[in-house]
């Protein structure tokens, strides 16, 4: 994968370049806006990692220029500005993702990969997770190699949870995105679906966070030492 890294800070730029190169990516690193424009014109890139505060202008200018030229080149903004407005503005202006500095290297790598998957249709159809295999196009689910039959709702819930492995999915999001008819006050249909799902795939996968939502942990419950099974 060919990446253009636009970052004016010497240490950060160099560090990111080396870290990404260690992961087998080809990185071209420039430190100025006009260098970035010239480099983009001369070579083919799969993605741009863009810092916003550059010595010769705002990174947003490059973003707007790309979008004006109808380029669908994915852009991941790296910025120290964490205010909601800054993030929303960048996304409105056509950024594909936004990462606030300082970030963990693992998060940068996973966002770069996710963005590449989203943009180029790389393997995003099969999710594997601790013995669970979920194949979205055929809506098939395997538990420890065994085919499991799920209802439409149950499949969507599981897919939602697996796509966000390790992060809690709030009840509201689940109700809005999966349940027919959206969220109902005082209704326990979400609990019913989850309990059916647990009965079919086994108890060890979905953890309840009371009042908040559900999560599929990347590590099994026993290893994480959770107070409740």
């Amino acid at each position: 994968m060919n990446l253009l890294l636009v970052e004016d800070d010497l240490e950060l730029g160099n560090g990111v370049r080396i870290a990404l190169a260690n992961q087998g990516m080809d990185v071209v690193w420039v430190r100025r806006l006009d260098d970035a424009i010239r480099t983009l014109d001369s070579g083919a890139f799969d993605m741009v990692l863009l810092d916003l505060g550059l010595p010769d202008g705002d990174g947003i200018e490059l973003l707007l220029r790309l979008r004006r030229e109808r380029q669908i080149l994915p852009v991941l903004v790296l910025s120290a500005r964490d205010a909601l407005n800054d993030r929303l503005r960048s996304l409105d202006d056509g950024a594909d993702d936004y990462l606030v500095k300082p970030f963990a290297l693992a998060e940068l790598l996973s966002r770069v990969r996710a963005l590449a998957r989203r943009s180029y249709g790389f393997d995003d159809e099969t999710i594997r997770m601790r013995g669970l295999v979920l194949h979205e196009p055929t809506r098939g689910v395997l538990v420890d190699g065994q085919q499991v039959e799920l209802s439409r709702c149950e499949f969507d819930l599981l897919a939602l949870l697996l796509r966000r492995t390790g992060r809690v999915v709030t009840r509201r999001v689940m109700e809005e995105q999966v349940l027919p008819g959206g969220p109902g006050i005082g209704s326990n249909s979400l609990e019913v679906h989850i309990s059916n799902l647990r009965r079919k795939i086994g108890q060890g996968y979905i953890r309840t966070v009371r009042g908040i939502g559900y999560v599929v942990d990347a590590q099994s419950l026993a290893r994480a030492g959770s107070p409740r099974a």
Partner: protein
Amino acid sequence: MIRGALRFIGRVIQPSLMRRLVLAQMAVVAALWTLIVGLLFYDSYKDPELLRFSKIYESVAAIAINLADDPKRQYDTLHAFDLALMETASDGNAESDTSPMLQVWQRGKLIYRTTDAVPEIFNSAPDIIETVHAGGREWRARTLHSPQFDTRVMIAEPGIWRLVVNITYRGYYLLPLLVSLPFLVVPAWLTVRLALRPWRRVSRETSERGPADLTPLSYRPPHRELQPLVQSINTLLQRVRDSTTRERSLIADAAHELRTPLAAMRVNVEALKAQSIDSGQRELMGNLLRSNDRATRLVGQLLQLMRSDAVSDAALPVALSLDALVQDRLAMIEGVAHARGVELELACAGEVPVLGERESLVSMVDNLVDNAIKYSPRRSVVKVQVAREQGEAVLRVADQGPGIPPGLRERVFDRFFRSPGQTQSGSGLGLAIVKSVVDKHGGSVALETGAGGRGLLAVVRLPLAVDGQDQPMLEGRG
């Protein structure tokens, strides 16, 4: 009833420009009236009307000359004439203070005078009006001389002050004023009110705008008196707007300057750690990363604090539901809690709409819950509750940690204060941020002892947004 009366008195006592203007107009009218009356007095003092009619003198002289040979008839005729004179010029009573004096001499001898109470009045020269003193009083007098039988006729009018006192006493001065002033007040009040209309428009526009509205006034009065006022209001608004903008860009700059080196340090150490296989080195690098985390957290909190201090005049409060916001934040933070072996639990019943600035509320919730997780022992539960109670939105965060002694519960809201004997790492800013956000939103925060006498219970109360104002909110990004 009494309160209403007090309010009325308050309104009456309170200074009013309107009343000043009306009173000023009334004062001018009264002053003008006094001036006119004074001029009339002065004129009649300087040149009394009666004394200017030479025909009267000539008539009196003619009577005295024609009846010179019959003193009895002469006197009677003069007396009759004098009575007529007094009735015209005064109240007809010769003893009255205001009545004029007629004195006639013939052949050097006084042949008639109005009253014996007043001695003879002599002018220094004929045919001039002058002030003379006689009988202890002041007179304006004029004498005409006829060569026939050496006849002299003198008419005198009383001096000015007696006249003033007399006329005032009779109400010639005050009565017209008292009668006409009420008729002048109402039109004056109406015209002043009409003329002050642009002024009222300016004051209405300034009072009706919200605290966050810093745009210039839309009404541009063409009047010379109002223009400077509106201009200085607009200049002031502009200055506040500029300083807010400056403050915000300062925050953004500080964020950038502080975070970029932290990010560089982190990325380099992580890349190094990925290459290293020496477990001793990896442990040292892990320490570096943890210090980096703490510095990052501190920078984040400082920025939150600056932002929350700057927020009230910068961002328009929006209607959002506190329950959804808390659920989102708890879902985000759950990873940290889970890694520490702490369980999060949220209880909320129905919508809890509040008016607020989203980012400030997010940092408030984050800091409260972060604190609770930090001080919780493993395998304990942090319970969060969102509810509406008596017109307020209430957020409760309870942990099962060591709690805070009652004596320190106020001080922990101070910036950089950390309770003594604290073993957890922290900046001492978390609760200061909570306090600042709560204050900006017009709410209150209190720390209490948790249920069963252990742990800490933080209670935040915010004003509830009016129902119907809350709109479906955007899903917050991570």
